[in-house]
């Protein structure tokens, strides 16, 4: 009897920790199924989608720049921005521009983005500038017929990393500073990114934007069609 008791005790001692772990694993599995998906933003990609963008993002307009960074990676993008320095805005410019530090960002930030992330880029004076886009009749058509990717505020906020215009004397160093950009883009009005997916395989694309920093990205062929329609 005594020998049996010690055997049982030895057995319990030996298997106590493993048994405990089995119970803990079961509790873990329960937690994983019931709670975990509610607590953390879990995403599942698949073999056919190896990017960082999910189709469901289109429904609620999330991370448009994650899509755009991938989309333009092997494409040529034409846009018009002179990449004027901040200094030049302080002392005036073309009549349609007011003395407005935000004009610097309106003119340049999308340009910085496409210059950094597209396969190739070209500064094309034939691409309409923000003032022209704002007063164009095409804009409403574009908003209605293009695919809306989502708010581009973050996309513009983080374009600072591509902005190589900085005053080495540090007087105006903040102009491409994250904080300054963040203040401008967070909690303010929504900038919107639109893309025409009529011809996604096109090699050359046109990027233009209006004074509200709404982006319109379309293939060069589509742009030429829109341009000739407006000229008529």
């Amino acid at each position: 009897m005594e020998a049996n008791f010690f055997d049982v005790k030895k057995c319990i001692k030996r298997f106590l920790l493993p048994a405990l772990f089995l119970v803990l694993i079961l509790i873990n599995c329960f937690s994983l199924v019931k709670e975990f998906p509610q607590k953390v933003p879990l995403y599942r990609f698949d073999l056919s989608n190896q990017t960082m963008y999910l189709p469901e993002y289109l429904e609620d307009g999330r991370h448009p720049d994650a899509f755009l960074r991938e989309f333009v990676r092997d494409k040529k993008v034409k846009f018009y921005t002179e990449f004027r320095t901040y200094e030049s805005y302080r002392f005036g410019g073309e009549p349609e521009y007011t003395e407005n530090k935000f004009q610097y960002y309106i003119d340049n930030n999308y340009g910085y983005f496409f210059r950094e992330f597209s396969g190739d880029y070209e500064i094309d004076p034939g691409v309409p500038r923000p003032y022209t886009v704002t007063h164009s009749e095409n804009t409403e058509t574009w908003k209605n017929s293009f695919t809306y990717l989502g708010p581009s505020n973050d996309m513009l906020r983080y374009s600072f990393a591509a902005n190589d215009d900085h005053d080495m004397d540090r007087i105006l160093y903040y102009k491409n500073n994250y904080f300054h950009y963040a203040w401008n883009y967070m909690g303010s009005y929504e900038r919107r990114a639109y893309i025409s997916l009529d011809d996604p395989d096109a090699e050359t694309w046109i990027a233009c934007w209006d004074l509200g920093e709404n982006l319109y990205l379309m293939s060069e062929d589509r742009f030429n069609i829109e341009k000739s329609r407006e000229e008529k």
Partner: protein
Amino acid sequence: MSIDRLLSEISSGYYIRQVLVITLLTGYGFLLLQIFRQEISVLWQGLLSFPAGLAFYAVTGYVLLGTGIRFCTVSVTAAMLLALTGMFLITKKRGQVILPIDRRGLCLILLASLLAACLCCSGLLSVILENDSYYYYSEYPQVLVKEGHWKFQMDVYLTDVGPVAAIINALPFLFGFANSFGIQHALNISFLGIFYLSLYEKLREKKDKRSSVLLSLLAAVFLATSPAFLTTAKWIMAGEYFMIFFFLIMVLGDRVLRSPGKPETALLLALTVFNISLCMIRQEGILFSLFLIICLSAKELSNRQLVLFFWMPAAATAGIYYAWLYLILHVRPDYSFLTAGKALLAMGASAAVGFYLVCIRGRVLLRIQEKLLYLIPGMLAAANMLLLLLDHKRYLTNLYMMLMNIRLRNGWGYFGWFFALGCLAVFYRMLRKKEWKITFTDTVMLGELLMMLCAIWARGPVLQLGIGDSGNRVLLTAVPVMVYAVILRLSGSGQSSS
């Protein structure tokens, strides 16, 4: 064209490229460890191959950026090949026996790695993504590859993202794919294998083979199914790499000495690479690296080994980065995690550790040094007390929020309860069996938690409720060390002194 089809077209070739990168990094790591292969088992070589290959890539990238050489596909690949060739030639010149490469082992490792990579990149395993994942750990690395150098305009990216984390996440843009999900999952799988093996070897010191296998396996499965581990493992940020490199340094540091004063060279090499990676994986990484160096100084490594393989690489790594930021680029973001003041403090701490290793360790206060494993958590506890006195409101709020996050299972699952019960069981065992001796693992675990409380206090804003709070995520990275330490205590293993 539908967005699904468009994404599929864009992704063409991405899968195979990421699989190949993982496989090739594993092969590279295996070859690295082959240089000294007679010292570590094939199993260890296999499990360490990918982490070693990945860490060596990160260190190579860091050296390129730190020396101003363009960081690009060609330079990284060339540098890694040169380094590997150089190491073979140096060891050959020194007359060390170079046995033929274990070709069978290499083929097996490559095959296993290929299969694992196919799974990891397939999308079957989910990931956690937040805003930071898209900008700090994807867009910034893409800019880094495009620019090829650290530049002033990278601004807050430079001060808030650990450079090694950016370099690791630059792999997609160097080698033509889009995300690092497969790389992160592959590292998780390697890590779980290393966790199992290191625990098994420790338990085997006191237990029979069957019990050791069973307990280690169950512990690894427990970890793999624990939300507290998975939150960090799946989150596409720097936490996973920090968690794994820290654990690797702890376990490899514990086993680096086969016999007193005779370290296993392969492990020293791996430790150096992991230590450099840990330093710069997060901005506070240098402090945790210095902490581990002090813990390792309780072992019978010589001062020369500690200085050459641990302290100097860590100090140089951090020094180079801070010099770039504040002496060359003069970055001054209005809001940043790393500041010039913090950088100076880190270098000061580094200098202090160097002074200790060169002038104090083994020379003076020898009686006190014998109690180092007790002193380390003691001093960190005192540091916490000091922070409490300096700003008790902030400290107590952080502590309260930490406990609330655990209680509300914000990323922790039921781990908080498990750990609390585990600690009670440990104390019970300590009382019953009078096991009062603190071990290396105990010191690392306690010290890591205390250091994290200091780091959370020092970062500025108080801890917030919620899984996404960076302080909460930092604490979660200690989970594997906590599990490991508690199991060793409960099983009575790991009680040998340093």
